[in-house]
């Protein structure tokens, strides 16, 4: 009886091993078949995949709740660390800003004091008109050009005329649509100027040549070749700090200034009204 049972047990064990091996083989082939069917885009395989997914995705959604909680904690910690670093950087920036603010305040006070000393009046908003040069009259006797401006545009006598942000003259007279511009090189042109580097004052005078003369600078004035000459604003026709030319030669006390823009090459001009000419006209009247 015991022997028979033992034989039966051994036979059962062998059968189970055989079934297991068979199952493994079947599953291997089934998996391969599924792979082939999947590659062939079989509707049945897709349905099976869809069914399993539909069953399991809700579970994953539930599992995602604690995962989101963990991520939220991680994100919060990361945010706190970021805030800490940002705060550190901002503190440093604020410190620098405070330093700059103090410097700015000091400069503003200094500027106000200097402005008061120089009777500086901030220039009003300027209006610009661009006009085409239609005639040039440059000879030994006069240096002026004529520009065309439509009548609808209002131009004031004495307006500053510029080209590429450089002063080239001022409006001398208006004849309907034509505006005569007295160039800085004209012998009648006398412009109060500064040496941009030293702020030393002088008068820039035209002499009907391509070069200008810098007058009344003083014998001991600190002027070197290359110094930029800008308007000083004194006199009220030109605002200050508009560039005109640079010192090209110094000989026997005479200072020559070369205009930045060669007068002969001007095709278009910019007529700028800084509102200062009203004062000039009123004074003249």
């Amino acid at each position, binding site marked *: 009886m015991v022997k028979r049972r033992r034989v039966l047990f051994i036979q059962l064990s062998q059968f189970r091993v055989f079934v*297991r091996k068979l*199952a*493994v083989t079947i*599953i*291997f082939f*089934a*998996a*391969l*078949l*599924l*792979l082939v*069917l*999947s*590659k062939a885009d079989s509707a049945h*395989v897709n349905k*099976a*995949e869809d069914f*399993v*997914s539909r069953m*399991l995705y809700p*579970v*994953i959604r539930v*599992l*995602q709740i604690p*995962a989101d909680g*963990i*991520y939220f904690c991680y994100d919060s910690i990361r945010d706190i660390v970021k805030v800490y670093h940002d705060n550190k950087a901002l503190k440093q920036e604020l410190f620098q800003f405070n330093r700059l603010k103090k410097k700015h305040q000091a400069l503003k006070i200094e500027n106000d004091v200097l402005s008061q000393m120089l009777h500086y009046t901030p220039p009003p908003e300027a209006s610009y008109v661009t006009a085409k040069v239609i005639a040039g009259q440059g000879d030994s006797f006069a240096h002026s050009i004529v520009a065309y401006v439509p009548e609808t545009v209002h131009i004031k006598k004495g307006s500053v005329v510029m080209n590429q942000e450089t002063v080239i003259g001022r409006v001398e007279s208006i004849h309907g649509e034509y505006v005569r511009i007295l160039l800085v090189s004209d012998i009648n042109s006398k412009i109060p100027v500064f040496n941009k580097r030293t702020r030393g004052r002088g008068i820039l005078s035209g002499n009907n040549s391509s070069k200008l003369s810098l007058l009344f600078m003083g014998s001991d004035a600190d002027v070197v070749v290359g110094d930029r000459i800008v308007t000083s604003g004194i006199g009220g026709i030109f605002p200050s700090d508009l560039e005109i030319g640079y010192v090209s030669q110094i000989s026997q006390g005479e200072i020559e200034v070369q205009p930045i823009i060669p007068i002969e090459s001007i095709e278009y001009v910019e007529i700028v009204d800084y509102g200062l000419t009203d004062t000039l006209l009123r004074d003249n009247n």
Partner: protein
Amino acid sequence: MHDSLTDIALLSFKRSIPFLSTLFFVLVDYVPFHIPLAHYLSPDLACCCVYFWVLYRLDLFGIFSVALLGMICDALSGAPFGMNIFVLTLVYLLTITYGRYVNTKPFIISWIGFALVLLAAFCMKWLLVLIYEHTLLSFWHVLISYIVTVLVYPMLARINIFIQNRYLSNEELFDE
């Protein structure tokens, strides 16, 4: 001898704990954690669990559990349907064939065994993707995933050992 239907249900539940715990880990594996490089750092927990349970509790983790798990992995991962069934069955086969060399040895030996089985599984996966998609997967990404899975195995084995000792050590759960 089972006294009531409740006992039978409880016993059935206990016998399915290895499968359910593995399913839980597989589902956790597919939960998005929004971590940079998560795709490459994600360990193959299904392989870890299949290896562990087949090695230590083959009676509770049969080939059909493995096949079902493979199908679930295929459906969740979007991999070619059948690939994970094939690979997990390979893990199963390798484990029952060579498991006896590592089963009663120290943990480090079973860990090395797992590393070797996983290597075969990853090579098979890589080959199947190559044949199926005609695309050569990045060697480095596969290697990183392999290393992460090997490194995660001791921790997962620890949890599974706890489950085994806590819920599955009862004698009535063992097959006669």
